[in-house]
């Protein structure tokens, strides 16, 4: 299967690989997927306490090139967004941006789940109600 140029670029030069302090109050961590399924994504956001804007985002992903690219792209998109705006990122936006083929759509779903999970971790830590999953995958 041929990968799109954008997937290859994110795979070769992933953006924002790394780790934030998961115990910090203004860091939200999302860990989704499972080793048995061949994909695990960990996505972290660091939120500016004053402005409520995501000032940093990091990821680490175990998975195929499309999974790595989806999470790399997600971190790029997250930076500079409010957590509400971040929660609105849809997996199909990722599919479109990376030209993912149908068998790789689950990678984008996983990235969306990771974003939501990171946001919820942040919300819970800060006494906010969890976002409710609006659509079932």
């Amino acid at each position: 299967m041929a990968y799109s140029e954008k997937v290859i670029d994110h795979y070769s030069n992933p953006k924002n690989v790394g780790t934030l302090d998961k115990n910090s109050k203004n860091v939200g961590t999302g860990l989704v997927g499972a080793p048995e399924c061949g994909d695990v994504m960990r996505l972290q956001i660091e939120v500016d306490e004053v402005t409520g804007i995501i000032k940093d985002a990091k990821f680490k992903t175990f998975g195929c090139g499309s999974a790595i690219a989806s999470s790399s792209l997600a971190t790029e998109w997250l930076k500079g967004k409010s957590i509400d705006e971040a929660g609105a990122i849809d997996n199909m936006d990722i599919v479109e941006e990376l030209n993912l083929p149908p068998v790789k759509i689950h990678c984008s779903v996983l990235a969306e789940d990771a974003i939501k999970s990171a946001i919820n971790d942040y919300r819970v830590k800060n006494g906010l109600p969890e976002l409710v999953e609006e659509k079932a995958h």
Partner: protein
Amino acid sequence: MELKFPIYLDNNATTPMDQRVLDTMLPYFVEKFGNAASRNHSFGWVAEEAVDYAREQVAKLIGADPKEIIFTSGATEANNLAIKGVFEMYASKGNHIITCTTEHKAILDTCKHLEKQGGAVTYLQVQPDGLIDLAELEKAITPKTILITIMYGNNEIGVVQPIREIAAIAKKHGVLFFTDGTQAVGKIPVDVLADGIDLMSFSGHKMYGPKGVGCLYVRRKNPRVKVTAQMDGGGHERGMRSGTLNVPGIVGFGRACELCMQEMDAEAVRLSAMRDRLEAALTQIDESYVNGNIQHRLPHVANISFKYVEGEGLLMGFNKQIALSSGSACTSASLEPSYVLKSLGLGDDLAHSSLRFGLGRFTTDAEIDYTIKAITETVLKLREMSPLWEMFKEGIDLDKIEWAHH
């Protein structure tokens, strides 16, 4: 020597054809195009003579009589002919077949097909090293057992089954023994008499011959084995496989067998030295594991799992430079990890993290050097990106985490 890209290390999928094989085949397309079954003119005689010669070359490689070789379109057809043919021919004796879980799909799916036709099939589990348990095999035999079908060498992990011992058990119980020899024939010495094999399939394109040609060895003496034809027609190949013979393909297959016979011993030494060097270097990487028994193994095959990196992602790191296969079938649409590796008891995580190396006649030391370097670099790079590797390094037990399954 200058490297040429991409490097081909997927010789278990198919081999490039040897130029010497092509040269032997070429006259049989345009100039000597006759039908080997045309008995009344020289075109037919020339073709028939060429087929007879190739049949001798093929038979010689496995210590058979030329009359025992039934040419087919490849190993898949030969596997179907052997299993379905025995099932039909020996229906009055029984309906039970014994095989194992790491067989090729052409065996497993044929067996599954027969289960729908009233067949009973036992799928033996393999041991963690990929070998079958001979005691389990013997225990599985019933008065209704007509066939044991166990492959010679495995296509994913290269493990070579204890063929002579299996044959002895089969003989003791009066059961026929068929082996899929596709990966082994031409790579290691195979002798149907010494090994006690009753039927064996193999294929041209796994041994530097052309695609679209293979054969089934069917023993003619002690016992005389018969299979019911699965293709009806002109009664070619002693009535077991009708259809005009693929003369150029058969000529190439014969030549390929001859070359393997001449070069096999030296080639096995050369390939296993390269394979061992590759394996030693790659297992220097932390948390990398060789899959399958390493004593009983084809000389050109290695299967290695690199824990905490995913196979398809790993391949992407060098798939422009190196043609390799992931042990997991992720590159197909199924996204399922390899059933062979899972049969060894590997968890899905390790099965998802494996690469299969198939070295071949044209593999060079320089290519192995490049491969070692490229894979090592990619594994290390992906580990830096892997949350599992980070957790492992922190001493977190990944088995204790409740993963969100999709």
